[in-house]
């Protein structure tokens, strides 16, 4: 088993966080995992993306040149990664913020208006979780319970009360992939 995915957005959108949570979920399931973040000097605003690889074998390069799946949160990331997705792969993109239209016919596209959906849930902050849920629902890379456990581990003590809302966001995303 080998899963390679890129999460990308602008700094502050939480692309790096969901990458980390996915990697943690992988380790919880006894998989090998790598998470490689790329960002600039600034904590917010610049492009921030991460490569996440899960495998039951030893992982070679942690760098993904052509991802099976790209999960895209903003316009700039769409333009950057759309050409790089592997033939036959998939792209999840945030139609709440991205106006670009798909240009390829050899990959599958999933429209996820995650900011609007998050507002429906009452908290804009979980937009990234909806995208992560969509990816997990599509790839079946890990079980959703492992994602929840990974998130708990990442958030640490004192934030447990946000877990049910995040779980809801994850499920909402997964439902899109199931369509």
């Amino acid at each position, binding site marked *: 088993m080998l899963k390679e995915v890129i999460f990308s957005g602008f700094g502050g959108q939480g692309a790096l966080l969901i990458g980390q949570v996915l990697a943690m979920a992988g380790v919880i399931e006894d998989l090998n*995992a790598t998470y490689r973040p790329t960002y600039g000097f600034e904590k917010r605003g610049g492009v921030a993306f991460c490569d996440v690889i899960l495998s039951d074998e030893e992982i070679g390069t*942690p760098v993904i040149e052509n991802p099976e799946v790209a999960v895209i949160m903003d316009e700039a990331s769409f333009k950057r990664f759309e050409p790089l997705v592997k033939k036959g792969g998939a792209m999840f993109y945030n139609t709440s913020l991205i106006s670009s239209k798909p240009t390829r016919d050899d990959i599958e596209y999933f429209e996820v208006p995650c900011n609007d959906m998050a507002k429906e849930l009452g908290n804009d902050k979980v937009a990234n979780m909806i995208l992560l849920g969509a990816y997990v629902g599509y790839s079946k890379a890990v079980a959703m319970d492992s994602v929840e456990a990974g998130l708990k581990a990442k958030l640490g003590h004192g934030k447990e009360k946000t877990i049910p809302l995040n779980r809801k966001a994850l499920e909402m995303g997964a439902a899109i992939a199931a369509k």
Partner: protein
Amino acid sequence: MKKLMKGNEAIAEAAIQAGCKCYFGYPITPQNEVPEYMSWRLREMGGVFKQAESEVASVNMVYGAGAAGVRAMTSSSGLGIALMQEGITNLASTQVPAVFLNVMRGGPGLGTIQASQADYNQMTRGGGNGDYYLPTYAPSTLQEACDLIQKAFDTAFKYRTPVGVMVDATIGNMMESVDIKENVQPDPSIPDVNEWCIRGGRREDGSVHRIKGLFNVPEECEAFNEELAKKYDKIRENEVMVDIKDCEGADVVIVAYGTTARIAKQTMKLGKENGLKIGMVRPQTVWPFPYDELREACRDAKGVLCAEMAIDQLLQDVKLALEGTKPIATYHRLSGVMPSANDMYDACVKLAKEAK
């Protein structure tokens, strides 16, 4: 048990598990998680963390603690390591053990904060004065980085020398599942530190321990240099580490270390899929360098591809190893632009064709 950890934090934890008792450091990206982690974790484990006023101070604090026979370390990135060079040659000359972690960023000068391997010359050739070397490990995965920083402390104390560990910023900043060996005991062959370290006062026989690198008499300094050279010969003899893969009957052998070597593994896979036999020699120590092992491993190859995130630095050692016996091509990306397995593969194909 495997845990998902950030590179810099995992390396720091591994150092503590290998008995590191004192850490001194100055913030510099991309290694800030090392001092941040040490600031609470080392103290929790009964050690001492000090945030130094500069890298110049860090290395001299390490000197003081190392002189007392304690496992001490610092970490930095190329610019900071540059500031430490006087201290590193001083540790070599006073024979004080310590470990230096360099999480490499792009240079020269301020450069970038992203991954690079352009400090190869800095670590293997050094910027300090005099006839000294810095034995240096160059791990490729986070697991190996943890294992080798633990080994670095043993090497430092076995030979009473400063030892380097260099990783590119990818390894420092990525997260990976690792299994850190806990409570690692020192190699039993390490001589008792009490034979040389300062403790305060003097021994029962009235003798005093002096840690010094200054000589009044040229002949004494010359004799010391000859002794030091013998020590480096011993390190060359015993401490070379190299990982050799699929070199027998290979068309092309890639020489690479660190993250570049991981990317090269992907290139080897592409070779397998397309019928080009690609092997790899991956130095795990860059000083001492595996010259003989490299030459031997490349025996069957039509050509050798030297891949690095630097311009022709590793190449110098590859040339010294091959002594003109094989065509050598190079592939590099720089300053945080990651090497591409596909491009590396294309370079292999081109080399194989031209070398025929």
